[in-house]
């Protein structure tokens, strides 16, 4: 059982305050959806939790199982059990997917996986996400289509088995088939054990495949409404307009 606790989180980029007091609790076996219009600060929340250097936490706390995540370096957070699936996965020239994944798995598990075992896990993981095995030898994310990048993020999610996964607009830019494959991956991950998911999305589309337990509406850098899955239906019907106006 794990818990990610976000308390009164304020985050700035340069002099500009983006997050203005975010409170959230995510526990194992829960799936939370954060929904909100563009520019509401959803991605800032994801990157700030992961520790991207561009974002400055000006106040508040983020605890993973009681440990202060904000005091940790980016890699320590990941090894503590946090995972961020990025909206725009980064191309790393000259570093092959298999080399990258083996390094990541080694770091997170604290020991190098047995080669044969790793090769098998990698193959199964790629099969399940319909990723061409040739991708293992390609440079990380280099020349991947949008959908291939997102599948590669979910492959990492399944291999690294974090305690809490933050998925930042993993659904954006996916066609229906890719969305289904990616959603199945997320659902396999959810079913795999004691894991919590924070799903950040602009659209309700992915929530038809990945059912949230809780929905939080984000506007103006904070959570403005919370509810169950029914809240997503309301957003689908009415859009974000009323929230945007209220937070402006």
């Amino acid at each position, binding site marked *: 059982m794990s818990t990610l606790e976000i308390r009164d989180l304020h985050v700035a980029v340069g002099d500009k305050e983006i997050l203005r007091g975010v409170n959230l609790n995510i526990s194992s076996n829960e799936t939370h959806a954060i929904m909100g219009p563009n520019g509401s600060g959803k991605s800032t929340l994801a990157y700030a939790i992961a*520790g991207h*250097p561009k974002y400055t936490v000006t106040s508040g706390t983020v605890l993973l199982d009681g440990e202060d995540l904000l005091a940790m370096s980016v*890699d320590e957070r*990941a090894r503590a059990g946090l995972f961020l699936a990025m909206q725009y996965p*980064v191309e*790393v*020239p*000259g570093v092959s997917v298999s080399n990258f994944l083996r390094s*990541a798995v080694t*770091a997170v598990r604290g020991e190098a996986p047995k080669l044969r075992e790793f090769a098998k896990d990698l193959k199964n993981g790629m099969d399940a996400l319909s990723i061409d095995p040739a991708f293992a030898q390609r440079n990380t994310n280099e020349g991947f289509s949008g959908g291939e990048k997102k599948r590669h993020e979910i492959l990492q999610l399944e291999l690294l088995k974090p305690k809490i996964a933050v998925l930042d607009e993993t659904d954006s830019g996916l066609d229906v088939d890719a969305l289904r494959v990616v959603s199945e991956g997320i659902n396999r991950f959810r079913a795999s054990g004691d894991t919590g998911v924070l799903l950040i999305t602009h659209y309700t589309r992915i929530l038809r495949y990945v059912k949230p337990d809780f929905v939080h509406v984000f506007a103006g850098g904070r959570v403005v409404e919370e509810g169950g899955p029914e809240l997503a239906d309301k957003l689908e019907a009415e859009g974000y307009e009323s929230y945007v106006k209220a937070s402006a």
Partner: protein
Amino acid sequence: MGLETMPVSKLHAESSYDPADFPVPTGREEEWRFTPLSRLKGLHDGTAAPVGNVVVEVDAAPEVTVETVGRDDARIGAAYVPSDRVSAQAYASFEKATVITVPREVVASRPTVVNVRGLGEGAGHGATYGHIVVRVEPMAQAVLVLDHTGGAVYADNVEFAIGEGATLKVVSLQDWADGAVHVSHHHAQLGKDATFRSFVVTLGGDLVRLSPSVSYTAPGGDADLTGLYFVDAGQHLEHRLWVDHGVPNCRSNVTYKGALQGDGAHSVWIGDVIIRAEAEGTDTYELNRNLLLTDGARADSVPNLEILTGEVAGAGHASASGRLDDEHIFYLQARGIPYDEARRLVVHGFFAQLLEKIEVEEIRERVLSAVEAELAR
């Protein structure tokens, strides 16, 4: 390009076997302005007396002949005329030259390794001058390794004369001890349909200034010049490329990449290419990239392409120097990979494509582990 930039044709107009034909550089000349002359130990102004503390040993493939000859051998200077003061000084000062010949139509069965070993502690006193001629006769094929180690102040010229339809692949490794000074000219003269592959790796020494150049005597020549350098605090590693397309339908490609770390780490890359009026159908591209791993390091990079014909197959250049990309490091760290390991992966990635081009496995392994050792510093 700055106002001081001269046309390539003008920069390389002078050539002579006599050092007196070149004025002593002051550091204001275009070809010397990046080089710290005070660290050349007198190689540039005639004050470095010959001491002969560099040993040249050749471990040749059985099909390849190796001779040590005197200054009067007609094969010396046949493919190359010195084009700057230090090169001419080396030409005027060496006592014995090494001539390596790959006979006509012979395919050498293994790499020929030339060990150039400095016996001095670091720079020591006085200088050593050397000369190597490599002749690959028509239709022959060979791989050559030039392996520079130890401590010395060394100036030399290496001539590669590559005959019709012949192929020469050269790996030149500058793996000098700290304090060594090496100023060297490598000139490849390509005959009809000849192929030249040069792989330069410069890692060690206080100051290394290597000038690889290429010229073509007939159409169909094909030259790839690849380089990798890793510059540490206080080191000056300079590579000056010069490709002279003077005949039609030849090809050249220059790709040099360097990583720099530490205070006063300085790299210089000059990429001069000329496509002369008669060199129609030329295809050339040159690229230099530098990765600055710390503050206090400096990479100078000057590509310079002069085209005197309208009929080229392709001509281009690119140069970029930048820091380690924060986004690359963040992505790897976000997957649990510690900073040092992330940095190692990214630097390896930066060099990966180049390293694959080193066909001599022992050398590739050695360069890999040298890069590892640099990163562990």
